[in-house]
């Protein structure tokens, strides 16, 4: 008998070592069957261990999950993904230049948010994570608005209250992003329960990282979704890393994250998260299931966090540099582009032209956004507004505090006090 020893998960490679993704079992595109959308969860457990893939190595869409999208839609998808990436890069640069305080890129994972937002209906409610900016791009929120949020400027939808990237869009049916991991997962289930109570046809979808799946709210979401058979799509974006910890620390060594679903009686589907067509198709399948009374679906998107966790992070401390180059599922943008080219509906030239156009668009948006103010340059929001929206109506103690701040900022001694403050 070997004695019990504490097992400590390890990533396959640390800085200086050669990237190694051999732990990933990747079936050929087209090899996984597509069951009926109302198939009982028990009969389709294999979907949690396989990996739904549509785009093959040659850029062809193959197999039963091929959603057969119109070329135009594919081109729009490519555009959305590219725009998301350009946007991310610009914002990261602006953070480096001190124009915004913080940023988080979704590089390498763009297919998840873009394909899912395209596969769902406008009336469906999205409960995003901080790495699904593509949802806003697809639903058409202007980049200027997103930038203004990151700038906490006079046009900031959050009125200066949230860190960059914590967007929301009530009219666009996108919930608010929270700094607290995973909280939105069971909230989405509650939203879906309400839709079912009201007898409405809308569903909810939510996203968390594989690391966040260890939080209590993951369990709450799956339990409530299963018990009430809520019309909800619960997505775990497995980008292999949670800041510095490898997915093994969330339980990924033992099982896929999709396999958690069946334990609750919820179908779990594992999908190649860098394959736009596969993500789109799986989402459509889950949406149809939910809308037909089939209840929830858990989807695991296998992808890779190509960039740092955030602008505060330095991944070279904990994983091999350039390891994304070795990631076997490639780059979702490159793969969709190759597909369009294989279809004869795209070219390197058109791609370059589109990139230039998007870059120009981002530049124009940024110009407009900064005109509404930046962190350090006016115009700025009125600090007195910080007392609003704590409650629907401002209670007396907040009115009193607002008065105190008003006197501090604008009262007779304000200039002196501030001047002195700088000396102190």
């Amino acid at each position, binding site marked *: 008998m070997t004695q019990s020893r504490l097992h400590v998960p390890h990533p396959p490679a640390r800085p200086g070592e050669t990237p190694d993704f051999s732990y990933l079992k990747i079936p050929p595109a087209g090899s996984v069957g597509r069951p009926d959308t109302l198939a009982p969860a028990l009969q389709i457990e294999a979907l949690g261990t396989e990996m739904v893939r549509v785009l093959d190595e040659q850029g062809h869409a193959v197999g039963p999950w091929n959603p057969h999208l119109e070329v135009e839609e594919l081109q729009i998808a490519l555009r959305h993904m590219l725009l998301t990436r350009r946007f991310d890069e610009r914002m990261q640069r602006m953070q480096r230049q001190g124009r915004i305080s913080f940023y988080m890129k979704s590089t390498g994972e763009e297919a998840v948010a873009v394909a899912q937002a395209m596969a769902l209906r406008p009336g469906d409610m999205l409960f995003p994570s901080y790495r699904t900016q593509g949802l806003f791009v697809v639903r058409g929120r202007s980049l200027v608005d997103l930038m203004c949020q990151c700038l906490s400027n006079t046009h900031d939808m959050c009125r200066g209250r949230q860190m960059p990237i914590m967007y*929301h869009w009530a009219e666009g049916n996108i919930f608010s992003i929270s700094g607290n991991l995973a*909280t939105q997962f069971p909230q989405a289930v509650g939203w879906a329960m*309400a839709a079912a109570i009201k007898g409405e046809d809308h569903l909810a979808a939510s996203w968390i990282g594989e690391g966040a799946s260890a939080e209590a*709210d993951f369990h709450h979401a799956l*339990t*409530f979704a299963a018990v009430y058979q809520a019309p909800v799509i619960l997505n775990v974006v497995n980008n292999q890393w949670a800041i510095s910890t490898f997915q093994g620390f969330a339980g990924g060594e033992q099982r896929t994250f999709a396999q958690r679903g069946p334990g609750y009686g919820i179908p779990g589907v594992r999908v190649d998260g860098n394959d736009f067509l596969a993500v789109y198709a799986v989402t459509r399948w889950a949406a149809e299931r939910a809308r037909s009374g089939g209840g929830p679906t858990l989807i695991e998107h296998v992808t890779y966090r190509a960039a740092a966790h955030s602008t505060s992070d330095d991944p070279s401390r904990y994983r091999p540099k350039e390891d994304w180059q070795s990631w076997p599922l490639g780059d979702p943008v490159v793969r969709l582009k190759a597909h369009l080219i294989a279809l004869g509906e795209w070219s390197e030239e058109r791609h370059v032209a589109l990139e230039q156009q998007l870059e120009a668009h981002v530049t124009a948006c940024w110009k407009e956004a900064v005109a509404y103010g930046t962190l350090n340059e006016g115009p700025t929001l009125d600090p007195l507004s910080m007392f609003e*929206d704590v409650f629907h109506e401002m209670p007396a103690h907040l009115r009193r505090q607002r008065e105190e701040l008003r006197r501090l900022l604008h009262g007779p001694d304000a200039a002196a006090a501030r001047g002195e403050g700088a000396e102190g």
Partner: protein
Amino acid sequence: MAQMNMVQAINSALDVMLGRDPRVVVFGEDVGYFGGVFRCTDGLQRKYGEHRVLDTPIAEGGIIAAAIGMGVNGLRPVAEIQFADYIYPAFDQIVSELARLRYRTAGDLCAPVTIRTPCGGGIRGGQTHSQSPEGVFTHVCGLKVVMPSNPHDAKGLLISSIESEDPVLFFEPKRIYNGPFDGDPHKPAVPWSSHPKGEVPDGHYAIPLGKADIVRPGAAATVLTYGTMVHVAEAAARLCGVDAEIIDLRTLVPLDVDMLCTSVRKTGRCVIVHEATRFSGFGAELSATVQEECFWHLEAPIARVTGWDTPYPHAFEWDYFPGPARIAAALRAVMESAA
């Protein structure tokens, strides 16, 4: 008008709101078919159906998270946490999410959730069925906090809570569900039917949040209290003969500072009473506020009479409980106090 105990008054408030507003949904552990372990939701599922009055899994965090999602989707959720002692698993959803959703979205999204939960001791519940955690929630910006002391207020305040656009923590002192309690466990139980506040209108009425109530006018000292302790304070005043003005806060957030301070400025003396533990309890905020607002009127130190700073012990419930003798002693002390 009908005679109701507090359980019936709460049931009536839920009934009225379920009937008036199709957005209202009521849920929690055992609240559906069974009608709640304290019977507050008795008969409601039968009347409104199991899509409006729901049993839930035993997961307080999930209950509140679901309530938030439902609230965002246009419902008016009323969630029950079976005992206030079991609200902690939902703490993150309440504090990080429910309380701040309106703020962080600059008013674009909100969830008008009411959380009902029985609190307080005196029922031999020991450390995990007796807590009064209201103080902790009063420190969380964005939550309203309510605790009624009688059936009439319970119904009116609960209706206001459900109608509030803000999330509300609604604490129900379970020791007085069935009758007022003056702090003496050896006396025979008194039913609400013998108390004027046991008279409760059948239909809809609202008691505004943020308004305290003078339950006993007086000139000599002010007692600030809420929940069960209102009745105990009344008994203490009778006991020691101090002409105390007893104020039932009813709402802790927002606090009716004006009424409180008007009284203390008048009497010059103040005793604060709550069942919760003393250190950093809500009495600390009351004391600090009164001191700031009424300093020049105070003729004696503000006194706090509270639960001791220990968990609620099963065997020593009545040594722990801040009963009439302790309150009376504090009243005497503030009357006699001199440098």
